[in-house]
């Protein structure tokens, strides 16, 4: 014997535990149980969200005053822009009817509140207060009025967890609005979003708007992802990539829309 008996037993015990963990991690039932736990913890999360909102409201009272002044100025500027856009929209509608094209924004959404946030480096996620009882399904896209947030990954009966757009494992087919060039947006470990698989001679520029292309049917077409902040060449030299500034600031999202059909 190389080991004393006790050490051997301890070693075998640990080996068994690690083996069991590896075995259970691939069982779907474990994730169903986890979703059930998420449902149970919905009430504490709701209470917690209420408390943190109140604390933030008191703590940021002074900042809110100055933000309010700034926002008023912005609202005036946006009102002017809106009038111009309404004009364009009417013109667009007229031209569309001439071409007999159907309206593209034909997806149905349901609103949900964010009751929990975790921004760990490996899988940042949000907990929502709605689940399968509100017709939410796994892999449903999640967005806000400003743009894409992510996709539903775990659904409980009364709550769900969504993986965010800056997750390294999430891939979204995307399109450059200016050049119509397509690529794939995914997250990185440092929390940024990258548009990959662009041609080496791509004309992508800083400030270009990136939207979903609707290529794999899982995301509706035309949802804003973000703007190009930086363009670089892949280490292989075979293509370009772009670092994006997401349209949605995921840390401050409070209400989201889930595309249910």
């Amino acid at each position: 014997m190389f080991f004393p008996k006790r050490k051997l037993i301890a070693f075998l015990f640990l080996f068994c535990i690690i083996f069991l963990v590896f075995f259970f991690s691939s069982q779907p039932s474990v994730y169903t149980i986890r979703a059930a736990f998420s449902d149970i913890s919905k009430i504490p999360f709701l209470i917690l969200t209420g408390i943190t909102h109140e604390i933030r409201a008191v703590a940021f009272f002074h900042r809110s005053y100055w933000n309010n002044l700034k926002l008023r100025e912005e609202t005036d500027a946006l009102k002017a822009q809106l009038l111009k856009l309404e004009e364009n929209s009417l013109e667009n509608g007229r031209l569309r009817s001439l071409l007999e094209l159907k309206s593209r924004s034909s997806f149905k959404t349901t609103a949900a509140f964010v009751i929990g946030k975790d921004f760990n480096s490996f899988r940042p996620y949000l907990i929502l207060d709605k689940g399968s009882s509100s017709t939410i399904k796994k892999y449903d896209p999640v967005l806000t009025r400003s743009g894409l947030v992510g996709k539903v990954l775990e659904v409980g009966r009364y709550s769900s967890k969504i993986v965010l757009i800056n997750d390294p494992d999430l891939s979204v087919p995307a399109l450059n609005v200016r050049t119509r060039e397509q690529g794939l947006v995914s997250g990185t470990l440092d929390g940024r979003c990258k548009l990959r698989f662009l041609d080496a001679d791509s004309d992508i520029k800083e400030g270009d708007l990136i939207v979903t292309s609707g290529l794999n049917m899982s995301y509706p077409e035309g949802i804003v992802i973000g703007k190009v902040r930086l363009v670089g060449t892949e280490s292989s030299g075979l293509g370009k990539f772009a670092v994006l500034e997401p349209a949605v600031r995921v840390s401050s999202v409070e209400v989201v829309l889930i595309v249910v059909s």
Partner: protein
Amino acid sequence: MIMNKSILALGLVFLKFALTSLWSMPLNIFDPLLAAVIIYTFFHSLDTKDVVAYALFCGFVADIFSLNSFGAYMISYLACAFSVSLFSRIVYRQNWLFLFPLVFLGVFLNGHFILILEPILSRGASPHYGGLFLLRILAESLGTTLLAYPLYLFSKRCASQLIA
């Protein structure tokens, strides 16, 4: 007031979510649950059975409230507890100030353990390791180290069984 260490672990998960909501930045700088595991390991490093049980329990709780592959935190917390236990046998255990470098080291190692474990458990590709990721891990280690002091004081005051 006597607080059970298991209830404390559950409370610390909710504390993490509350701090993330208050902090409102897309960056996680506190891991109170891991800090509790390291504090417990530091003061009970000679009692391996208890250390393993508590690390597994806290890992289980962390796995329940995460979106990672199930078991990633259980194994990483266990590995972390073993590493800290090993170091705490080297340093002078009666001086509680040694706790803070150990918390820093533990959180730093935990980040790297998860980085190795996650692709294995999810059977996915290993993400690219960048300098900014290292900065995020360092920020989390520093934040958790700062949080370890109030947690240590709280445990001492409430006799939460974290401290021997």
